[in-house]
């Protein structure tokens, strides 16, 4: 953080002001400071129409013509307030991001808090480079919260910054365009696209294990008993009915889920392009996780000890995404 620029340092102040506007934020409340409003193209056409009406009124000395022209001018001024007002006071808040696989839409979920009356014709869009930014319109209910889901296609695997969110309104007359730009704080994980259909398990691994894990993958639901919930148990393992009754988290113990150990290795996906290798490994990770094995992952420079559960799965997929 640089020192606050002095009053006379106009350029520095401008920079500071501009940077403050570009800071990623977890939530943004729309006020006069971050809503921009300009006449739209239709607004300019309307201006020309008003001028025409005024000239005709003057030339034919039409009192009612003046009244009409001025009524429309007044309504347009009021509509500027209303356009601004349809964004003003809204708070945009980003919900936790859900990682996506490459090739599938990443979903950005926002909660819009509206302290005022209901807002109509509010458009939401993501700045992905297309002009004009395509918008999806929604009605935001009065005095409450609405959820808005925006999907986008991230450019390949990795950890990506979020695109700018644009919220725009032309309501009610379309004469003005008010918008705000929000840089949501957060990073979107995009995992490598899992190869489909899931390729057979690596041969070396099949020899090592007792059984073909692929055949086992369906048996994950066949439970032998229950035990107390342990960190890392998948949600599917939780006995929800019991949890609801007693408030205690109980997990199913599936047959041999903890006995089998699987090692996924970079070298097992030999003979492929690096991206295709990552895809294959991702497919195996997903399958192994679904099967409930303890599994580990070794990539050049990355070593994950065998374990299972959602955090482990994410750690592995993140390692693949970042690799």
């Amino acid at each position: 953080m640089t020192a606050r620029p002095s009053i006379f340092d106009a350029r520095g102040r401008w920079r500071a002001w501009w940077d403050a506007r570009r800071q990623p934020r977890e939530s943004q409340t729309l006020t006069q400071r971050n809503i921009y409003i300009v006449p739209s193209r239709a607004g300019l056409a309307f201006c020309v129409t008003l001028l025409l009406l005024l000239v005709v009124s003057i030339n034919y000395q039409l009192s009612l013509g003046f009244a009409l022209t001025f009524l429309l001018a007044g309504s347009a001024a009021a509509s500027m307030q209303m356009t601004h007002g349809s964004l003003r006071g809204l708070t945009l808040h980003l919900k936790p991001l859900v990682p996506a696989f490459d090739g599938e839409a990443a979903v950005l979920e926002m909660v819009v808090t509206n302290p005022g009356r209901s807002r109509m014709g509010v458009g939401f869009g993501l700045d992905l480079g297309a002009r004009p930014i395509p918008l999806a319109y929604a009605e935001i209910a009065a005095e409450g919260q609405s959820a808005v889901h925006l999907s986008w296609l991230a450019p390949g695997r990795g950890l990506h910054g979020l695109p700018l969110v644009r919220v725009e309104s032309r309501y009610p007359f379309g004469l003005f365009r008010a918008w705000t730009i929000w840089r949501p704080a957060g990073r979107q994980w995009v995992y490598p696209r899992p190869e489909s259909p899931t390729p057979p398990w690596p041969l070396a691994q099949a020899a090592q294990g007792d059984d073909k894990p692929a055949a086992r993958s369906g048996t994950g639901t066949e439970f032998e008993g229950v035990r107390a919930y342990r960190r890392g148990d998948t949600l599917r393992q939780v006995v929800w009915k019991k949890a609801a009754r007693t408030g205690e988290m109980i997990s199913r113990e599936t047959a041999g889920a903890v006995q089998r150990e699987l090692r996924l290795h970079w070298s097992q996906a030999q003979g492929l392009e690096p991206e295709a290798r990552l895809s294959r490994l991702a497919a195996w990770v997903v399958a192994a996780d679904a099967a409930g094995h303890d599994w580990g992952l070794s990539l050049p420079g990355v070593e994950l000890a065998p374990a299972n559960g959602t955090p482990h799965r994410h750690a592995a997929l993140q390692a693949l995404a970042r690799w």
Partner: protein
Amino acid sequence: MVTRVADASVSSGARWRAPSREARDTLFMVALIGWTIAPHLFHLPLWVAGMAGVVLAWRGWLAWRQAPLPGRGTVLALLGVAAVLTFTAEKTLVSKDAGVTLLVVLMALKTLELRARRDALVVFFLGFLMVLTTFLYSQSFLTAVGTGLSVWGWLTALTLAHIPAGRPTIRQAAGLAGRAALIGTPVMVALFLLFPRIGPLWPSANSATRTGLSDHLQLGSVADLASDDSIAMRVKFDGRAPEQARLYFRGPVLIDTDGHEWRAQSAFDGRSRRAIGLRGGGVEVVGRTISYDLTLEPTELTWLPLLELTPPSDAAADATHGVQVLDGTELRPLPDLDLQWRTRRPISERVRLHATAGLDDHLVGATPDDLQQNLRLPPNFFPRTRAWSRQWLLDHPPPAHAEAADNPDPVVQGLYRYIGSAGFIYTLSPGAYEGDPVDEFWLDRKVGFCEHFATSFVVVLRAMGIPARLVTGYQGTDAQPEDGWYVVRQSNAHAWVEYWNPARGWVRADPTAAVAPDRVEQGRAIRPAQGFVGSAINSLSPGMVDRLRVWRETLDNRWQEWVLGYNRNSQFDLLRKVGISTPDTDDLGRLLTIVISAAGIFGAAAAWWDAHRRTPGQRQTRRLANALRALQAHGVQVAAHESPGVVGTALRRRFGVVAEELACRLDAMERLRYGPPGTAMAADWAGVRAGARDLVAKLGR
């Protein structure tokens, strides 16, 4: 991109399928266009109404069936047909009527081409233009109400087009549009009152649009006027009103003719009677004078039809004479040689004035040139009437072997008797005169109205060597005054004659009086037969139609005075009322700037206030945090998600019994907000605050 938002489910009845939103919006727009162009259909050719109706109905049907729109070729072809039809009917495409015709057709056709939002916007803006064109034909109160509805409708359509999601009802959209218009109304009033009213930016050829007096006369044009019952002016007399037969309002004096048409001098030539040195300003004052107020509706002409004779304001002649213009001073009317009151510019606003007239005054004095001009007849015209005149003079020689011109009065009396006895008929619909209208009227058909009588009379007198000329204007008023004002209608338009009597000056002669004394003596306006509705109402309650009319015209008068008649002078009056002693246009601009800036500041303040609005939950959290601020020292923090009850429970757990009282108060607040409705209880944040202070005191001990 996907937006998941609860979608309003479309309720569909079992029998009647509700139209889709798009179809509904289109149908609304089609109906709106119909409503907006309806007032035009009365004065546009029939084919326009037919074409617009068919196109709109077609569009409505397509919307209902959700069928595809016709191709661009069809639309262009229809537009071409309309342009050709307009051109053949109006002989031009740029006149007002042609413009309105094309606008109506264009608007109807554009509905067939609503593909993108831009097309819709074009229709919206055409709609506003269309509303304005209605005012070219009528600015009555009723028109204002009707067009007010149109404007509301168009704003509603505009709103509907900008709510892309869901299915807002038309009522909702109308409410929103109405709200915008209501918020905009103060701006409208300020602009209406203060926007500097200036004259036309360039001369418009709209004199033909208003019926009324005209600066030229061709036999037949007064017949159009006769059917026009609209108000030309209103007069109020100081004291008792004179008899109707003496109320002549002097308009254009027509001296020159080419045989077909009589023309007035097109502009004031600067020669006044006083300037050429006629004694007493060229007016002989006889008898008493009468003062009157007059308001004249816009005529687009440069004549003020004043009561005969209203002489120039001239201290040397008579201090009581003169014209004092109250509204429209910039017109600076001046009397010319023939005592026509001419204005500098066409009268495009209502004029209000106070003047004094001498009903028995004469114009005296004339230059020889002047008299010569009043004898001129175009050669080769009216041959039979001229011959008849000479013969008549031989048959009725003037007494004492004098020339007819030396004492024309007996000749005029003789001609009156002739008209009264020769089978002339006064009628409003004499039918078309082909050939030479004067010859044909005077000698053959003998049916006509004031114009025919007056022109023929002038021709006869000139043929006899008596200088004579045609005077047009208004004669008579309504019999009963409204609010003390006597109404002069366009149907009071009249034409009469002035002839030169060397002994008396210019003398008025009204040949129409000789055949239809009613027309003049009672000032009875030429009134067309009542329509079916009028006669039906009158048969129910005699006089009802007249009472209704008086009531409506009083309303119209007020409307005229306050809204339509609001002009630059009214603006200056307003400025004087707010304390600016010598207002000018700059003051208007300044005041307008101040008012608009104030409105802007008010709007910004409202926006700031609105931006700091909180949801009820946020408000509650803030109040709760404020009320419990005293406890901050003890580490009590209120999180955004905590309700009063939750905080109370936490306090109980933490401080035990000492916190019980405060916790109870918090529970009460909890019940108030989340309990079943109907518990009559007031929020008591002060109590919570007091409880918090108590708790702090107890803990401190």
